[in-house]
């Protein structure tokens, strides 16, 4: 704890800002039920009410409280993005490490399959698949996780490739250690720092990707509060000079900025770029 605080004190302002933002979002997401003044889908008044004491940020296109939906949106959008990123890392990381360790046809098979997947534009592929399987949240999570895992795979494989040729791995192999042991004890610990940084960046991309899908109407489905679809639902207001519909977009931006700042700092610390 003390070490963490000390670390934080040495961090640049941007990183502190990032950490603060992330912690706030997590707290808001966890305590959404207690924080939101109204229910997630509760219709509380007329449509498009202006900002007032009663509805701090006004109401949306169906007369739901904008602030409450923003707060619940934190839970839904951030939660789903986090889950998706974890899954993508599990998939991409594991296959990437396997490919690097085993080489040969496994590597060829995985790499070529990933090449094909990457050649299809992700957004359009997602649109297609989501129309086929229907836009449920599990489907959304799986589809995006698979698509994003391609990039994780590439990084994991590249990083692991450099480690596999190291002497200590060779030694472990000669010792007769099993595959799982080598990956877990020798490769993973050394590959971790770049993967952790990548996790932050991937999270941002997944997050933006989900919002783009929601914006196009194929992401998280109404009436679930979600920042991407909230922008789309209320976009007409912008014409009339009302910035309320931009708030969910700003909420997305703030979090990704925060994560990016922290990742940047982390990369800076681990990569030894002291210049």
């Amino acid at each position: 704890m003390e070490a963490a605080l000390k670390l934080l004190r040495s961090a640049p302002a941007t990183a502190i800002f990032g950490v603060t933002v992330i912690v706030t979002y997590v707290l808001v997401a966890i305590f959404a039920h207690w924080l939101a003044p109204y229910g997630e889908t509760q219709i509380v008044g007329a449509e498009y009410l202006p900002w007032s004491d009663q509805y701090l940020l006004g109401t949306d296109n169906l007369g739901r409280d904008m602030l409450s939906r923003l707060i619940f949106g934190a839970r839904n959008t951030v939660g789903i993005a986090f889950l998706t990123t974890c899954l993508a890392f599990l998939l991409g990381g594991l296959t990437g490490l396997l490919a690097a360790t085993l080489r040969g046809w496994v590597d060829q098979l995985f790499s070529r399959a990933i090449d094909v997947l990457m050649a299809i534009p992700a957004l359009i592929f997602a649109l297609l698949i989501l129309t086929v399987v229907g836009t449920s949240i599990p489907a959304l999570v799986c589809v995006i996780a698979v698509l994003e895992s391609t990039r994780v795979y590439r990084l994991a494989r590249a990083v692991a490739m450099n480690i596999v040729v190291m002497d200590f791995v060779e030694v472990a192999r000669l010792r007769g250690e099993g595959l799982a042991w080598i990956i877990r004890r020798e490769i993973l610990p050394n590959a971790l720092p770049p993967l952790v940084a990548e996790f932050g960046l991937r999270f941002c991309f997944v997050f933006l990707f989900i919002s783009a899908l929601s914006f196009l109407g194929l992401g998280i489905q109404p009436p679930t509060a979600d920042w991407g679809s909230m922008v789309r639902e209320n976009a007409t207001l912008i014409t009339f000079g009302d910035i309320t519909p931009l708030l969910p977009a700003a909420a997305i931006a703030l979090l990704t900025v925060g994560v990016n700042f922290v990742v940047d700092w982390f990369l800076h610390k681990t990569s030894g770029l002291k210049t």
Partner: protein
Amino acid sequence: MGKILVMVAQRLALGLLTLFIVSLIIFLSVELLPGDLAQEILGQGATPETVAVFRHQLGLDLPAHIRYLHWLGGMLQGDFGQSLANKRDIAELISGRLGNTLFLAGLAAVISVPLALTLGILAALYRNTFFDRAVNVFALSSVSFPEFFIAYVLILFLAVQLGWFPSISNIGPNTEFFERVYRSLLPALTLTLVVMAHMMRMTRAAIINLMASPYIEMARLKGLTPRRVILHHALPNALSPIINVVALNLAYLVVGVVVVEVVFVYPGLGQLMVDSVSKRDITVVQACSLIFAATYVLLNLTADVLSIVSNPRLMHAR
């Protein structure tokens, strides 16, 4: 040089294989979509009888593998076929849209690539100054904004409030060049902000990475100005990662702009593909996805070739 040709040939062959698999995947996914073209086109007005006639006319009642082979046969002879929905030639249908997409991508690239490289080099030159930090924070923020946020903010300020630019990109085949640039500027600016950060940061990182190497140290000790060191000694060697990231972003400008097209009603390829998916117009979907995939494969290949050419050690590898 011969090595490069061999590599290009290998990669092209692999690319063709990739395209083939992509076409299979896309075909299968469209097959799996609920409802078919006949139902989607006839909509509420469909009767079982007209749906049957429609299917028969378009050959939709044939088994899937036969339709795929038929399509593939045409494709191998360079014939994209016709749109199933309105019988227009796909080559004709797509060429205009592809032109628009390339124009927008080109415009965004012309703005963003020089800007990103300049800012990146400057940031490396003046690293750890206020300028460097400001550029860094700006880049990190702009890459963090969802595209539609940037687009709507630009519309709100530049179109609705100031009225400098049109809020929709109404361009046609007869629009003059400068008019076209003017009407496409807002979407191009949006895309610039989206892709610039990535390229800029890579430029800066690649150059700074090299600054610690002995030959740069040598150049510096010779008393060269930092500007000369960076431009003449560091930059040429940093080109390979920079080219890679530029290629990646150019590919994105071509294939990943559906959201921007939707917001600005820009008649590009992405919109065409989304439309065709929703109407199950499989031939158009196939053509679009092949173009996208080919763009990706070719740009990647170009990047690899360029980074080899730009790096003597790779060029003359033993």
